């Protein structure tokens, strides 16, 4: 058992080092620290100028959830896609590794990035927009970020598997996902204000329910658990379906003979 855990930890570490291309100083700083701060400045100042300070702070809380989802999605999706792009997937598939271990090892080490991004957003919002933390239920806030990280990790693995299945590029998907997270999960626009179809789409995206819980915890309320439970359940669902699809993707690749092309 201990060996299995050590092996999983090594797989997680080395696949992260080998496949997460934002680990160079410039990429890491711009994606983990600078981008979230710029998002706060852009949306926060816009809200402050066009509306009021309270709305600007509400945007900042939303942007914290969005930025966590975005950094996790970018990192995790790279970690599967680049295995195909680098041609290493064939060698990985030729090994006897447990496919579930392989699959889930690709997301674990992105957790610290989520924490850093959340800190970047909340810190810059405090600095630039005067976001206060006096009322915050810290347990709820940490739980909300943890659950959003969990659900976006599994959702990102699921999307990465769709990329493998479709044989398309990673960059197109991250652009679409970025837009969906920003517009449909309640980051800026309350989900209740969305057209019905988009509202329903938002309900099956990660971050949406976690963000509801985060806002409750931020206001000092204690009723965040139902939202966080929904967010976690969504993540588990994506985890199960994603793993199933990952197995199907492997069989399909071997049946269609595309491993020679992508790996």
């Amino acid at each position, binding site marked *: 058992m201990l*060996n299995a855990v*050590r*092996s999983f930890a*090594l*797989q997680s570490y*080395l*696949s992260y*080092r*080998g*496949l997460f*291309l934002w*680990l160079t100083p410039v990429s890491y700083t711009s994606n983990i620290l600078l981008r979230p701060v710029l998002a706060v400045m852009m949306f926060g100042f816009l809200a402050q100028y066009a509306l009021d300070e309270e709305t600007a702070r509400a945007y900042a809380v939303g942007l914290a959830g969005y930025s966590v989802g975005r950094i996790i999605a970018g990192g995790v999706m790279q970690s599967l896609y680049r295995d195909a792009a*680098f*041609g*290493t997937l*064939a*060698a*990985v*598939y*030729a*090994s*006897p*590794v447990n496919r579930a271990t*392989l699959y889930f090892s690709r997301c674990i080490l992105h957790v610290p990035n989520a924490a850093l991004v959340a800190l970047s957003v909340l810190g810059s919002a405090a600095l630039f927009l005067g976001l206060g933390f006096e009322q915050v239920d810290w347990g709820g806030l940490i739980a909300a970020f943890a659950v959003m990280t969990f659900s976006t990790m599994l959702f990102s693995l699921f999307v990465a598997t769709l990329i493998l299945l479709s044989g398309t590029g990673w960059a197109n998907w991250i652009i679409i996902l970025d837009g969906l997270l920003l517009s449909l999960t309640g980051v800026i626009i309350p989900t209740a204000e969305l057209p019905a179809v988009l509202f329903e789409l938002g309900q099956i995206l990660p971050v949406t329910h976690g963000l509801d819980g985060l806002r409750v915890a931020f206001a000092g309320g204690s009723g965040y658990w139902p939202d966080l439970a929904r967010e976690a359940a969504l993540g588990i669902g994506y985890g199960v379906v994603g793993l199933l699809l990952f197995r199907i993707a492997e*069989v399909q690749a*071997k*049946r269609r*003979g595309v*491993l*020679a092309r992508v*790996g």
Partner: protein
Amino acid sequence: MDSGFAIECEDLRRVFRSRRLTGQREEVVALDSLSLQVHPGEVYGVLGPNGAGKTTAIRIFSTLLIPTAGAARVMGHDVVGAAGDVRRRIGLILGGERGLYERLTGRQNIEYFASLYLMNPRQGAERADAVLEEVGLTHARDRKVEQYSRGMRQRLHVARGLLPDPDVIFMDEPTIGLDPEAAQDFRRLVPELRDRGKTILLTTHYMLEADLLCERIAVIDHGRLVALDTPEGLKQRFGQGQVTEATLRHADPDLAERLRALRGVNAVESEMEGAAQRLRLYSDVGRDVASALRNMAGADTIQGVVTREPTLEEAYLSLIRETAGN
């Protein structure tokens, strides 16, 4: 069913289907009723032109490709039905510059795959050091792969294939990109592996390598087995008897034609090297072509004459031309 063969396939067929932009379906038959049997501990070569189906066969044996029809087994395990058992028994060496984690060091690459082969980190580290030493990469083990030369990458591919200490090793053009010294090191390694009881299936375009290393060689073309024999057997069967090579100080434009007309001479190749002319005559065994050549060209004109057995390359080319003619 365990037949005692380390690797075997029966009527193996693989068709790749694709669709053109016009919507028209296209089919490429990569393997067509291929049957092979490789004994345990044997070094078995697979030769063939590009697109003959060599890599397709290796990918099927290593569970990376599902055959369209037929069956393949490795150490008695079906490559489709018991793919997990096959993977635990094989090592795979693919040629080329891709297929490695560029941002990791050579050692980290091997350690990563050790974890995929269910080794604990300590075992993995020890094994990584051992195989990196075996392929001569110890000095560069802590350097990132993105800084490796093509030859070093190929050595790392070999190290990864040896990592799980497998019973069966598939080598797909393993010396491609290696410098002569590294290729020679590799050619020393193969008999060592065989002596350790490993079964090796090797594809290569280097005939000398196949001649030197393989106990039996299968020649495949258009996905079909066209010949199977020992290297010597292939030379005898397809090498067109004996080869006489001669260099003439001065070119004689008609000589090749006149030599072709001689009884027992099957083919003549002629090429110019500056003012000199090089001739290669393929004739029946025992035929004294050298004397006939001296008489026709004049003894003073001939710089040197050598009669020898055909090489594997000559036998291979003759076989492939014959197959193409048919």
